[in-house]
C-alpha cells in the first residue's frame, strides 16, 4: 500500500472518519481489510445509512390499517381494495444529474422503477419533480434539456407513462439542481415480495446486466493504490442507463413473482451487490456467502472491491430455492436477462465474500479464500448514527432581500401596479407557465390508463378491471420552506394532498424526498430537523401515513445551499374514476365558489419573487385542522357530483388559480373578490387551505350546506362565461367608506382568456430560449 508515502490514511480517503473507523473495528472485533473498508465506506455513506437523518425519520407517523409495507422497504405499499395494492416511492438523483444530466436523470428513473417492481408491483406511472437555477442561464438550459431528455428517454422506452411532476426555477438551485423521481406500481395484494433472504441454503441469483466499473466513485482510490499506472480520474463515475435492459428486467421479475419462483427480490442500486446482499440478509436475520468469481462482469481485471460496490445499472438479486433454479434461469434467459448463481444464504448472519467457490452449505469450498466477512447488521441496521448539531440561523425569519427580482420580460410590474399585468407576468413566467414543453417529451399514455395527464393539476389513472382510479402528484413549497422550514414542510404536505383531494380522491399516504444541505452545518441540520417535524405534524393532522421516502443531503455548491426542499409525493384513490373534478371551467353560467379564506402573508410567494417582498412580511400561516376540513369538503362535493371543476389555490394565488381554470377550460369568468387587507394578498397571496370550485347554480345551496357542515367558509365569487377573465376587487364592508361593501378598491383584472393562454403556453419555451 501507499500508506507510507501518503500521510492521509486509506479510510479517510474513502470518506470514513476516524470515529467511524473506530465503530467499524468495534463491530468487527478487529481492523477491517481494504475490501471490508470499501464495503463499509459505501454502506455507511449518508445515502445508504441515513446516519444523520435516521433518528429524525423515526418520529414520522407510519403504518396504519391499509399499509402493507412502510419506510424501510423499497417502496411503500397501501391496500386499495379489490384485492389490489399500490406501491409508490420517490427518490433523488440530484448529484449524478448535476454531472451528466441526461444519464443522471435516466438512471434516476431506472432506479426508482426497480424499487417498485422489486416489491412485485408493475410500474404504472412516473412523476418527476425538478428544480433548476435561472432559466436564462445557458448552463441551466443545458441541464434542463438533459434532465428532461433523460427522464423521457428512459421512461418512454420502458413503457411507463410519465404523468406529472414539477419544474421550478430558483437561483438557489443553480449549482445543485434537484431531480426527484417518483414511481407508482400496482399489484394483487398477495404478490407482495419482500427484499429479504430467508432460508439458509437458498441461492442468491444475480440477473440482468453484467457488472462493470460504474459508480465506483471515490472508492477508486483503492484501485489507484494498487495500479499506479491507472489514472482513477479516467474511471467513469457516471453510469449509463439501458432502459431496454430494464424493460426486460421488469418482465422477468414480474413473471418470477407471479409464478412464485423467488423467496426474495432486491434491486441493485447504491453500493451494488454489497448493499443488496447485506440488506436482504439482515432483513431475514440470515447471512449470505458471495462467490466473487461467479459474478458476470463486463470488464477485465476488476478488483474484488470494484465488483462488490459497482453500481452498474439494471441488475436484480433473487433469493431462490435450489429446486426452482431451473425455472428461474429459464424465465430470465427468455427475457434476455441472463442469471447467475452468485452465492448462498447462510445461517451465520454474516456477509462473506469468497474467491474460489462456495460449498453447498454456504461455507468456502476447499482451497477457497475468504476476502471479507462482516456481520450483515453492521453494514445496515446497525450502521453508525451521528448526532448532529442543529442551530437555527441568527435571524429566524430571513425575508427575501428586497430589490430587483427575477424579471421575465423587461418591465416588471411593481407592487401596487396594474394587477392584470402582474397576473400575466405570473401566468407567463418561468415558474407559472404551462409545462407543455416538458411533458410533451414524455409518453403519458402508454399502458392506456391515463385519464388525465400532467396538463393541469394532479394526474388521474384508471385501474383496469375496476371502477376506481388513482390520483398522483408531487409538490413542495420551497419558497416558504426557505423562510420557515417547519412551515414549509407542513405546507408542502398540505398542498400535495390538496392537489389530490380537489380531484375527489382520498389521499392514501405520503412519500417524501428530503433535499437539504450539509448536515454537519448546524443550520442545515436544523432545517432538516424542522422539515421532518413539519412533515410529521402535517401527516398526523391529516391522518396520513408516511409510507417511505428518501433523504438527499449535501445539496450545496460554492454558490450556497439550496432552499430546503421537502418534496412530497401523494397517491390518492378515487372510488369512481368517472366521478372526478379537474381544474378546467366547463360550462357557461356555472357558479364560481371559493372554499376557504385568504390569510395575510406574502413571504415566499411567487408574487414576492416577482415584485419584491416587504422585508417585514412573513409567509402565511397554516391551520392543519382547517386544511383537513377543506379537503374533506371538496372530496365530498366531488363524490356527490355537485362539483366537477376544482382547482386548489397555490403558487400565484387566487388570481392564478382562476386564470388556470379559464385557460384550461377555454372559457372566461367574471368574479368579484372581497378585499379585507391588501389587494395583493387577496389576488396573489398563497395562504393555504383554499379551493376554487365551479358548480351548477342549482347546486350552490347544496355546496354551501356541505361547506357549513365541514366548517369551511364558502363564498360565491361570480360566474363562468365569456372570453375574458374579469376579477373585480370590492370592499368587504367591514370598515370605513373607502371599503364600503361592493365598492371598487383597486383596478380590476380584465384580460382576454386567449391572451392569458398565449402567455401561459409560450412562457416556458421563451424562458428557456426554445421558442422556435
Amino acid at each position: 500500500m501507499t500508506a507510507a508515502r501518503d500521510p492521509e490514511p486509506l479510510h479517510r480517503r474513502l470518506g470514513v472518519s476516524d470515529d467511524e473507523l473506530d465503530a467499524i473495528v468495534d463491530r468487527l472485533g478487529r481492523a477491517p481489510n481494504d475490501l471490508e473498508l470499501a464495503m463499509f465506506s459505501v454502506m455507511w455513506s449518508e445515502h445508504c445509512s441515513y446516519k444523520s437523518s435516521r433518528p429524525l425519520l423515526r418520529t414520522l407517523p407510519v403504518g396504519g390499517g391499509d399499509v402493507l409495507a412502510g419506510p424501510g422497504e423499497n417502496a411503500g405499499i397501501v391496500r386499495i381494495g379489490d384485492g389490489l395494492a399500490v406501491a409508490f416511492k420517490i427518490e433523488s438523483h440530484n448529484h449524478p444529474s448535476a454531472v451528466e444530466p441526461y444519464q443522471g436523470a435516466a438512471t434516476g428513473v431506472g432506479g426508482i422503477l426497480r424499487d417498485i417492481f422489486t416489491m412485485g408491483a408493475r410500474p404504472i406511472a412516473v412523476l418527476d419533480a425538478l428544480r433548476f437555477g435561472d432559466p436564462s442561464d445557458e448552463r441551466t438550459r443545458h441541464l434542463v434539456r438533459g434532465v428532461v431528455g433523460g427522464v423521457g428517454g428512459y421512461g418512454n422506452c420502458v413503457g411507463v407513462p410519465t404523468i406529472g411532476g414539477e419544474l421550478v426555477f430558483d437561483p438557489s438551485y443553480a449549482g445543485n439542481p434537484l431531480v426527484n423521481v417518483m414511481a407508482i406500481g400496482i399489484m394483487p395484494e398477495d404478490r407482495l415480495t419482500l427484499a429479504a433472504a430467508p432460508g439458509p441454503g437458498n441461492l442468491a441469483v444475480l440477473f440482468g446486466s453484467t457488472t462493470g466499473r460504474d459508480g465506483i466513485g471515490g472508492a477508486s482510490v483503492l484501485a489507484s493504490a494498487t495500479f499506479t499506472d491507472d489514472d482513477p480520474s479516467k474511471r467513469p463515475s457516471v453510469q449509463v442507463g439501458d432502459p431496454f435492459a430494464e424493460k426486460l428486467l421488469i418482465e422477468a421479475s414480474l413473471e418470477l413473482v407471479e409464478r412464485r419462483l423467488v423467496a426474495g427480490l432486491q434491486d441493485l442500486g447504491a453500493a451494488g451487490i454489497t448493499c443488496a446482499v447485506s440488506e436482504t440478509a439482515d432483513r431475514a436475520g440470515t447471512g449470505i456467502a458471495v462467490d466473487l468469481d461467479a459474478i458476470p462482469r463486463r470488464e477485465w481485471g476488476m478488483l474484488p472491491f470494484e465488483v462488490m460496490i459497482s453500481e452498474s445499472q439494471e441488475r436484480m438479486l433473487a433469493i431462490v430455492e435450489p429446486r426452482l433454479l431451473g425455472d428461474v434461469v429459464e424465465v430470465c434467459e427468455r427475457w434476455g436477462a441472463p442469471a447467475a448463481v452468485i452465492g448462498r444464504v447462510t445461517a451465520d448472519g454474516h456477509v462473506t465474500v469468497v474467491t474460489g467457490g462456495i460449498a453447498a452449505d454456504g461455507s468456502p469450498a476447499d482451497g477457497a479464500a475468504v476476502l471479507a466477512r462482516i456481520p450483515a447488521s453492521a453494514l445496515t441496521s446497525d450502521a453508525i448514527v451521528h448526532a448532529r448539531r442543529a442551530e437555527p440561523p441568527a435571524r429566524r425569519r430571513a425575508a427575501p432581500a428586497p430589490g430587483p427580482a427575477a424579471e421575465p420580460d423587461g418591465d416588471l410590474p411593481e407592487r401596487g401596479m396594474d394587477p392584470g399585468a402582474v397576473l400575466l407576468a405570473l401566468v407567463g413566467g418561468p415558474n407559472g407557465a404551462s409545462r407543455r414543453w416538458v411533458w410533451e417529451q414524455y409518453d403519458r399514455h402508454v399502458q392506456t390508463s391515463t385519464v388525465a395527464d400532467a396538463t393541469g393539476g394532479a394526474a388521474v389513472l384508471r385501474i383496469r378491471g375496476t371502477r376506481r382510479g388513482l390520483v398522483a402528484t408531487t409538490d413542495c413549497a420551497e419558497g416558504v420552506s426557505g423562510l420557515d422550514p417547519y412551515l414549509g414542510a407542513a405546507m408542502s404536505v398540505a398542498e400535495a394532498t390538496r392537489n389530490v383531494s380537489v380531484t375527489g380522491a382520498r389521499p392514501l399516504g405520503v412519500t417524501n424526498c428530503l433535499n437539504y444541505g450539509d448536515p454537519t452545518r448546524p443550520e442545515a441540520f436544523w432545517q432538516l430537523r424542522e422539515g421532518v417535524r413539519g412533515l410529521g405534524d402535517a401527516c398526523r393532522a391529516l391522518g396520513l401515513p408516511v409510507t417511505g421516502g428518501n433523504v438527499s443531503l449535501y445539496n450545496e455548491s460554492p454558490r450556497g445551499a439550496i432552499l430546503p426542499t421537502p418534496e412530497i409525493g401523494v397517491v390518492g384513490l378515487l372510488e369512481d374514476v368517472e366521478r372526478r373534478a379537474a381544474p378546467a371551467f366547463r360550462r357557461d353560467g356555472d357558479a364560481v365558489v371559493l372554499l376557504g379564506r385568504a390569510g395575510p402573508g406574502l413571504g415566499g410567494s411567487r408574487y414576492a419573487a416577482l415584485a419584491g417582498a416587504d422585508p417585514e412580511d412573513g409567509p402565511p400561516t397554516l391551520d392543519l385542522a382547517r386544511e383537513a376540513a377543506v379537503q374533506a369538503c371538496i372530496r365530498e362535493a366531488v363524490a356527490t357530483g355537485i362539483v366537477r371543476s376544482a382547482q386548489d389555490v397555490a403558487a400565484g394565488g387566487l388570481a392564478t388559480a382562476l386564470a388556470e381554470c379559464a385557460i384550461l377550460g377555454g372559457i372566461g369568468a367574471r368574479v368579484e373578490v372581497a378585499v379585507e387587507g391588501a389587494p395583493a394578498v387577496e389576488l396573489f397571496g398563497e395562504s393555504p387551505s383554499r379551493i376554487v370550485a365551479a358548480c351548477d347554480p342549482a347546486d350552490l345551496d347544496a355546496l354551501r350546506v356541505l361547506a357549513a357542515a365541514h366548517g369551511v367558509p364558502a363564498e360565491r365569487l361570480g360566474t363562468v362565461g365569456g372570453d375574458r377573465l374579469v376579477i373585480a376587487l370590492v370592499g368587504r364592508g367591514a370598515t370605513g367608506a373607502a371599503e364600503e361593501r361592493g365598492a371598487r378598491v383597486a383596478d380590476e383584472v380584465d384580460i382576454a382568456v386567449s391572451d392569458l393562454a398565449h402567455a401561459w403556453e409560450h412562457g416556458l419555451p421563451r424562458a428557456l430560449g426554445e421558442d422556435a
Partner: protein
Amino acid sequence: MTVRVGVVVFPGSNCDADAMHALALEGAEPVALWHESPELLGVAGVILPGGFSYGDYLRAGALARFSPVMRSVADFAAAGGLVLGICNGFQVLAEAGLVPGALVRNRSLRFVCREVTLVPERLDSPFTIAVGERRPLRMPVAHGEGCYVADDATLDAIERDGRVLFRYSRPDGTPAIGPDDAANPNGSLRGIAGVANAGGNVAGLMPHPERATEGILGSDDGRAIVASLVRSAAARAGGAARVVGSTGAGPTQRATGATA
C-alpha cells in the same frame, strides 16, 4: 366465430398489451406472437405494436426486422395477409421494406407525445373501412423518430396509387402538408401519417389508434381503425380458402384458418 389477430411481442415492445386490449374491445381474439418464434398461430391479421423493440438502438425498428417472427410476417404479408404496424411497428415495417419510405428523427429532435388529428385519405382500405366517412380522427402520437421521408418519386407514386392512408391535419380536417405546419407533429413529408404497401394489405401508422379506444382516455376515434382491421381480417378468415400457403404459414395457421 371470433377472429384471431396476432400482436407481435418484441423485446422492448411496450404497447403490445394495449393493442391486445383494443383488439378485445372490437371482439377479436388477441394472440401474442413471440419474437423468437416463427409461428403465426393461425392468426388472420397481425399488429406490430408500438414500443422500443430492441431498445430502438441503432435505428428504430432496425434490429427487430431480423427477428424470426418477422420472416414469417413478411411471408404472411407477401401472401396477402393483413399487417398493421403502429408507431414502432411502422418503423419495423419500413426498415423491413414492407412499406415504402423511412422514419427519421422528428424535426424538433425531441420526442413528442401529444394528441393529433389525422384524416383518412381513403375509406376502402382494410384499415379504414369502418371509418365510414372522411372525418378528422383524434388520437395521440408518442415517438422520437416519426418523421416520414421518402424521395420525391416515391412520394409521387404512393400518392398517385392511393397508398397514403392518413395525413396529419388541423383540427378541422385540413391536411397539414407542410413539414413545418404546427399540426404536423414531426415534420413528415407531405404530412404523411400512414402508408400502405402496393398490395394494400400492409400498413404503417405513426399515431396510436389503440390509445384512443375509450372515451375515458380522451378519444375513441381509434376504434374505427382497429375495427377496420378486425372486420377485414374476419372477412378474409371467413373465406377459408384464403389461407396463406407460403413457407411462413405454419401448419397451425393452416388448421385454424380452415376452421375460421
